[in-house]
């Protein structure tokens, strides 16, 4: 299929209306499980951010009340500072707030605004110089009216306390390593962040759902396990109860500080009730029976779910998982053949028939998003691998066996054939990421066509995540998944910096000094357009070098009951905060 327009034009031109596709849904399944939440709204022309938005056109006046019934497959802790997993952060957003968030609207949000920050607890941000950010807090933000905070006002000292705690215990603390100091003003209304060095995307980092959640000191210090027993912050919902393998619930915070454009209190919903269900068939049958309001639909089962639930609204969204091949670290650290040669890596990419893979995954097919960064950042930040903007490197994403073989012959001599182990996780991914097995099973056959004989090395998830993914102790190459990157800078730094200097997810220990230098310089730029352009250049560069070989990530489908209204336009990796960005404006029609 030739290039005829934007990625989303092409996705939606075939079977899904573009209007629906662009009214993006929230994401239910991502790398670690299935948090099932919401789809899209019906409004067209509203461009206010969530807090101040009006209802989507044609949906009517929001009716307060009702409990949202969703599902989550896995709950791994309740303390967003302690957790590394996006699941905890996503769920924490029901009860906690942060200084800023990403922009969401009711209805359609143009792609150039997908990666745009919005204010939350802060009502103003000043940037007097490139190293200083001053956040003025809203005066009406109060913690939940529950002991031990009893509804007291959220003040600057709470932000400082939370930042210090985050820096002390968070596995993600490197994300904020550019911060020199955080101080509170004497009157408690302002927080000043001083940076060690300029960081042009600092506000995006502050808005990330994986970092600066504001947690009150009294609560944390109440007991050693307080923050794991329950959640208590200034978010839109009070924590209700958690029973492992049963459910997690929240009730409406009647004192939440945000209102809609008409001055009505948010959230509209009386509560959130997430059933903990691990089995996909159970999730689908519960939705068909009407006991769940919204679910994530595995692409392989889309037609079946449509048949079972003909009234449901199906929304499409970019899936935020990166699916990719990564190579034995010695390829880069010790110049070990064959993956030290970029021609071999390019050949592997060209041996992957991405269209065929997507068609195997779902009758809806899909495209090749998340190559190399998340498509969910929007076209202002992401280069379409099929588009002309990707430049010459685009050829390496095209399926071309002849060229792949020629590259292998040139790189390895002889007939270019070689054998290599392929590691992969044989558990967890296979159940929670519905397309993982389909792709994994197909890869050896695709590589065989190019003369690469693959011996499969299945690894139990715990072994995989620790040894192969975490420590890079493997030979040959690995087919793996990468969970959400909530900001552009995090992608580049994590994947390409040295492992002990911020490259926590540099699984192959890629040691390209030039690339690291360019990333550092890009992150120090102040002008967003300049950052954007350099980000494009870097995508072209890594597509050419093929340090990691992106595979495919199908789009995500969510089904919801037509009664669920006021659904925000969620834009992918930046907006996983379910409570504050996704469900704040949900309501049920009669």
């Amino acid at each position, binding site marked *: 299929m030739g290039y005829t327009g934007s990625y989303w034009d092409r996705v939606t031109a075939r079977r899904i209306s573009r209007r629906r596709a662009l009214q993006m849904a929230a994401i239910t399944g991502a790398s670690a499980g299935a948090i099932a939440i919401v789809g899209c709204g019906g409004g067209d022309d509203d461009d206010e951010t969530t807090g101040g938005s009006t209802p989507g056109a044609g949906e009517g006046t929001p009716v307060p009340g009702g409990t949202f019934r969703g599902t989550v497959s*896995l*709950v*791994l*802790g*309740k303390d967003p500072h*302690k*957790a*590394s*997993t996006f699941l905890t952060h996503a769920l924490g957003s029901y009860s906690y707030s942060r200084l800023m968030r990403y922009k969401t609207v009711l209805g359609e949000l143009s792609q150039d605004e997908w990666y745009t920050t919005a204010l939350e607890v802060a009502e103003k941000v000043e940037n007097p110089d490139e190293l200083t950010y001053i956040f003025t807090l809203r005066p009406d933000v109060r913690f939940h009216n529950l002991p031990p905070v009893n509804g007291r006002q959220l003040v600057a000292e709470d932000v400082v306390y939370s930042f210090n705690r985050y820096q002390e*215990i968070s*596995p*993600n603390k*490197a994300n904020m390593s550019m911060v020199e100091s955080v101080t509170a003003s004497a009157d408690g209304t302002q927080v000043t962040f001083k940076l060690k060095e300029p960081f042009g995307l600092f506000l995006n980092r502050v808005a990330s759902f994986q970092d600066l959640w504001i947690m009150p000191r009294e609560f944390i210090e109440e007991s050693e*396990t307080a923050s*794991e*027993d329950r959640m208590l912050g200034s978010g839109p919902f009070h924590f209700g109860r958690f*029973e*492992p*393998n*049963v*459910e997690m619930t929240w009730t409406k915070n009647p004192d939440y500080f945000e209102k809609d454009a008409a001055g009505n209190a948010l959230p509209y919903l009386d509560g959130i*009730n997430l*059933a*903990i*269900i*691990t*089995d996909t*068939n*159970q999730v*689908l*049958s*519960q939705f*068909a*029976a*009407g*006991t769940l309001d919204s679910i994530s639909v595995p692409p392989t089962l889309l037609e*079946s779910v449509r048949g*079972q639930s003909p009234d449901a609204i199906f929304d499409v969204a970019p899936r935020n998982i990166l699916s990719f091949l990564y190579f034995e670290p010695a390829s880069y650290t010790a110049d070990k053949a064959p993956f030290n040669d970029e021609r071999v890596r390019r050949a592997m990419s060209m041996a992957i028939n991405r269209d065929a893979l997507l068609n195997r995954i779902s009758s809806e097919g899909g495209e090749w998003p998340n190559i190399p960064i998340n498509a969910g950042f929007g076209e202002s930040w992401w280069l379409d691998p099929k588009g002309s903007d990707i430049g010459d490197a685009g050829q390496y994403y095209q399926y071309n066996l002849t060229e792949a073989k020629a590259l292998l012959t040139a790189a390895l001599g002889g007939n270019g054939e070689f054998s290599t182990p392929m590691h992969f996780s044989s*558990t*967890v991914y296979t159940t929670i990421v519905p397309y993982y097995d389909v792709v994994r099973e197909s890869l050896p056959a695709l590589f065989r066509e190019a003369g690469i004989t693959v011996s499969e090395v299945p690894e*139990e*998830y*715990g*072994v*995989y*995540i*620790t*040894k192969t*993914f*975490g*420590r890079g102790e493997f030979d040959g190459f690995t087919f793996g998944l*990468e*969970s959400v990157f909530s900001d552009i800078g995090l992608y580049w730094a*994590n994947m390409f910096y040295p*492992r*002990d200097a911020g*490259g*926590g*997810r540099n699984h192959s220990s890629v040691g390209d000094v030039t690339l690291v230098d360019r990333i550092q310089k890009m992150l120090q730029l102040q002008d967003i357009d300049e950052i954007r352009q350099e980000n494009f250049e870097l995508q072209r560069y890594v597509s050419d070098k093929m340090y990691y070989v992106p595979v495919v990530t199908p789009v995500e489908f969510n089904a919801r009951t037509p009664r669920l209204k006021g659904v925000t336009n969620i834009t992918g990796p930046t907006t996983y905060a379910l409570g504050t960005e996704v469900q704040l404006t949900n309501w049920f029609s009669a």
Partner: protein
Amino acid sequence: MRQYIFKRLALGVPTLIGVSLLVFFMLRVLPGDIVQQVAGDNLVTDEDRARIERDLGLDKPAYQEYFSWIGNAATFDFGLSLRDRQPIGDRLQRTLPTTIEMSLLALLISLVIAVPIGIISAVRQDSIADYVGRSVSIGFLAMPTFWLGTMIIVYSSEWFRWATPLPRDYEQIWENPWANLKFLLFPFGHFVPAGPSVVLGVSLSGTVMRLMRTQMLEVLRQDYVRTAWAKGLRERSVVVRHALKNALIPVVTVVGLQVPILVGGSVIVESIYNVPGIGQWFFTAIIARDYTAVQAIALLTALAVVLSNLIVDITYAYLDPRIRYS
């Protein structure tokens, strides 16, 4: 008999200690530790590792940890889950009765299905009833629980839009007996027996059914049974009063051995049916390398196996008066 029970219980102690040692140390040498899982995708520095291990109480030498854990476990204090920092004992109180009840019901169902069919199959050997009974038993043996459970969930939804209750709807038998039995036996309502206990029971019944038939055939050929026939006793009396009791002895052994199989089956069936029991927890705990939770569940499972074997031996004495324990 009492002396025998005490002796058997005492002999169970080394078994339990052996299991505890095995589980404790195997978990720790297993590649893939909880520290990396807590850190997620992030690189674990030595400093991070030390802090996380300190937080989780894993910073002491393994033997010290073991003695501390086994000492507390002896008083049924299993500590906190490493994953969610909640008391394991509290969760065991909620989940263990559920799994025990589900398993006992499954055993009961398997016996209700297997024993009558096994008897009829043997008494009417080579008749249509026998062929049907044997076919059914082979069919049950061939159907794994995960397949049968999944098919029931999928097709109930596809054809009737039926769904099982959600986990939150589960109530213990002493809280609401009807709701409890409905969850485990008739989850779709309509008195359709398609619940988790039924699926487990059906799978177990195949083995028991075949054994029951074989044993009955053997016993029915014994001299004392022939004598009973010669005395002109009615068939029912011969089969039920004279043959069945002896035929049941090996069956009881096999039923006792089903306990570990039931534990394994519960892991899958609880996930498929949303049963908030110990099996589902065991599965997620292993994946998450939640050492303390896995240790507690494994130890209790071993205890259940020891006790079930004891019960089997005691049942022998009831069934066969020639067996006397002292």
